[in-house]
């Protein structure tokens, strides 16, 4: 019961307290205007290059932008404790670490999902994109899975920013890696082989592929393999994040570097 309370209530409180982007002055330009503009940018690049249709870029970039809250919100719910000098207090509590940190991921997944859906809906409204009405429930599900998978990477990044001071720079670098390697704007078969191989081990890649297939008329059963791979990659990063958190926690206790900023 305590673990459930920590997971749900603690996670929500932490998200609301630590993710400074919830102010509308930040949220609207960062998580509404920017994803729409990124979609438009690449849709027009695609038109100019005569490569693929608008739907391809809408799906790819909308899901890519889900990575922004998933990376930054997840990292700030951990790094923010250090900035607020509360990390020591949190880590000296007897609370189990699993619900403590995974609970923080739940609102982040919802946020990532919301950003991606805003992007998809804006793409449908502004560009020549038609997604079959029957595809929407499965598409919504795949976006949830992809956001969860990205949040796993965000958890790993959150652990690393316990030691790396430039969290914002680090997050942007990871976002760029996802943009180039995850098949956001170039299908995996059109990427150089080594880039496609790297992409296969990143979140987003399989989720984007599944979402594109669904938008093209496939059903959920056709993309279960891709969804399973997305879950697997996300799970891998979540486990890595938890291990890194444990490692950095122990290391920071040993070297008295927990609150060094």
């Amino acid at each position, binding site marked *: 019961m305590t673990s459930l309370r920590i997971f749900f209530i603690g996670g929500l409180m932490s998200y609301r307290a630590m993710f400074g982007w919830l102010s509308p002055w930040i949220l609207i330009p960062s998580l509404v205007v920017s994803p729409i503009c*990124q979609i438009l940018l690449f849709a*027009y690049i695609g038109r100019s*290059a005569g490569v693929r249709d608008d739907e391809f870029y809408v799906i790819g970039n909308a899901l890519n932008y889900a990575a922004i809250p998933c990376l930054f919100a997840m990292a700030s719910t951990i790094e923010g404790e250090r900035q607020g000098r509360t990390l020591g207090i949190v880590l000296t509590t007897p609370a189990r670490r699993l619900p403590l940190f995974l609970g923080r991921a739940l609102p982040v997944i919802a946020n990532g999902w919301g950003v991606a859906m805003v992007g998809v809906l804006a793409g449908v409204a502004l560009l020549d994109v038609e997604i079959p009405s029957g595809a929407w429930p499965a598409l919504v599900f795949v976006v949830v899975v992809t956001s969860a998978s990205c949040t796993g990477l965000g958890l790993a990044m959150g652990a690393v920013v316990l030691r790396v001071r430039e969290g914002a720079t680090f997050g*942007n670098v990871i976002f*760029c890696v996802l943009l*180039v390697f995850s098949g956001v704007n170039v299908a995996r078969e*059109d990427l150089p082989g080594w880039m496609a191989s790297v992409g296969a081990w990143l979140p987003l890649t399989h989720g984007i592929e599944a979402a594109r297939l669904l938008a093209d008329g496939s059903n959920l059963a056709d993309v279960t393999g891709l969804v399973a791979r997305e879950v697997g990659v996300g799970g891998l990063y979540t486990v890595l994040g938890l291990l890194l958190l444990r490692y950095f926690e122990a290391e920071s206790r040993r070297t008295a570097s927990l609150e060094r900023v």
Partner: protein
Amino acid sequence: MKDRVAALLHQQAVCYRLQLKVLSTSAFEGFLAVLFPLMFATAALLVYRIDGDPESMQYAGLGAAIMGMWTCQGVVASSLLSRERWAGTLELLVAAPTSLTRILVPMTMAMSTIGLYSVVATIAWERWVFDIRLEIDNWFLFVVSVLMAAVTLATVGFFLSVTAIRYRTSWALGAALEYPGWLLCGFVIPVSLLPDWVQPLSWAIPTTWAMDAIRASANGGSPWADLAVCAATGAVYAVAAAYLGRRLVDSARRHATLALT
């Protein structure tokens, strides 16, 4: 008179040099301001490369090289005064006997210098990664056009920095301007591809004209007409910024809101 000119030049040089040092040692405003557009340029070039048309690659390669100049100015300039506010130095700048215009212009020139570095880095990246050898018909005119882009972008940065003085989270505004700038200035897509009602917005940005001048110099045309319009629109931004800057700072001082974060 001679002493006053010498004092002005000395002050401009000191402000420029200090700001350049700040930017070049900052991971976020220096390193990331170059890397972020470089990765987006990479994504755009990967899209263009699918078709493999050498003419399209030249077109995109030239625009992608200039993209970074917008990032170095737009994002950093928007939050320029906010950063001074956070550092507690905004009141000192405003209260100094030197006018704010004389302080901000060399600062935005320093940002443009980072932008010029971004151009060189992107051209080297394109050659190394994509094997694009930019064919420039007239290097002299090309360099003049790039320098004109840098100078007029500094005036746009000056305008952004003063108009965002009351926007406490102006970094979010600056980040949200990144993609629209890339779209509107015609770096990697022709402006004529944009909807008719959007194109006047493009014409109001000096960088659009600078980009046309850069393409004209590369293709053997005359860039002078575009450069003249570019200089004129840049001058409008500078005059508007100087006027608005004085009004907005006076207003902030009158309402005692200058230092509020």
